[in-house]
């Protein structure tokens, strides 16, 4: 689809320009340089959350919300469903996408695994923002072992 291409290219430029390696990578160092992209993703996620169909805003169950994100939101944004959702039923969820569209053009396999987190920061923020609009505070991190598969770990914060 043509309009997704424009978004993908825009995302690539944003990562190239806005991600800067932290000169002093302390334990919190890596986080600060990712946070610009994450906070942009958060804003977009919040706004997208507000545009979701009305019935979704009535979700109360955590698991229902996460299932919704994996199916409907992922389809709306990336044209595919999340490949798997696992949980420990204590607030931690692992969402796995075996061919994440923003990583597919990059590589296949272990090449560029160190670079991959930059390309996931925006999406982590997006998930976090969408969850926020649906009423859940969360912490979202991503990990990659082999492109283009990636895992998003969502930890729901109890109020």
């Amino acid at each position: 689809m043509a309009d997704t291409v424009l978004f993908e290219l825009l995302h690539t430029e944003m990562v190239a320009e806005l991600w800067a390696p932290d000169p002093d990578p302390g334990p919190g160092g890596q986080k600060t340089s990712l946070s610009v992209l994450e906070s942009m993703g958060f804003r977009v996620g919040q706004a997208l959350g507000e545009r979701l169909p009305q019935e979704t805003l009535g979700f109360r169950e955590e698991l229902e919300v996460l299932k919704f994100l994996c199916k409907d939101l992922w389809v709306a944004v990336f044209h595919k469903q999340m490949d798997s959702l696992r949980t420990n039923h204590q607030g931690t969820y692992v969402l796995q996408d075996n061919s994440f569209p923003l990583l597919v053009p990059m590589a296949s396999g272990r090449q560029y695994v160190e670079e991959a987190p930059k390309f996931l920061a925006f999406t982590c923020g997006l998930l976090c923002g969408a969850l926020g609009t649906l009423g859940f505070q969360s912490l979202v991190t991503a990990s990659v072992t082999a492109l283009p598969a990636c895992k998003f770990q969502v930890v729901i914060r109890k109020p």
Partner: protein
Amino acid sequence: MSRPVPRRPEYHKINRDLLVLTYGALVAQLCKDYEKDEDVNKYLDKMGYGIGTRLVEDFLARSCVRRCHSYSEITHIIAEVAFKMYLGVTPSVTCNNSSKNEFSLILDKNPLSEFVEELPAGRSSLCYCNLLCGIIRGALEMVHLAVDVMFLQDRLKGDSVTEIGITFLKQPEKKKYRRRK
């Protein structure tokens, strides 16, 4: 993934909104990083250039346009094929001079600024959609055409329409390789 995915009409809108919202977040971030409007404009143009150099390949692959024989043809293709394909709008084209190398794309509705009512306070010379200028410039440079692209009118600044001016710069090396008989 061959299982059919449920496509509700709202999701198409979400997908379109994704680009517009992401662009808005980008401009907001750049306004935070740079105080001067000119710097934000320049940065947007630079990013657009990077996008344009890659977008042109996707465009050529999808559209199969034939080789163009005039600047006017090229401008029409940008308006009627490219803009339609990527942004869903078709600007109208006008030619601004008799030597036929200055054109304008006139947009009634600019999809990238759909959610913007007015420019932020103190940002009156911000060219909100300057990314588009960079994209056009980058794309055309990849097909060996040097152009100057800039916003001539902007609805966000109070004008009645949004006008993007494209000036095709003359190629000085054109006559160099003429064979002498």
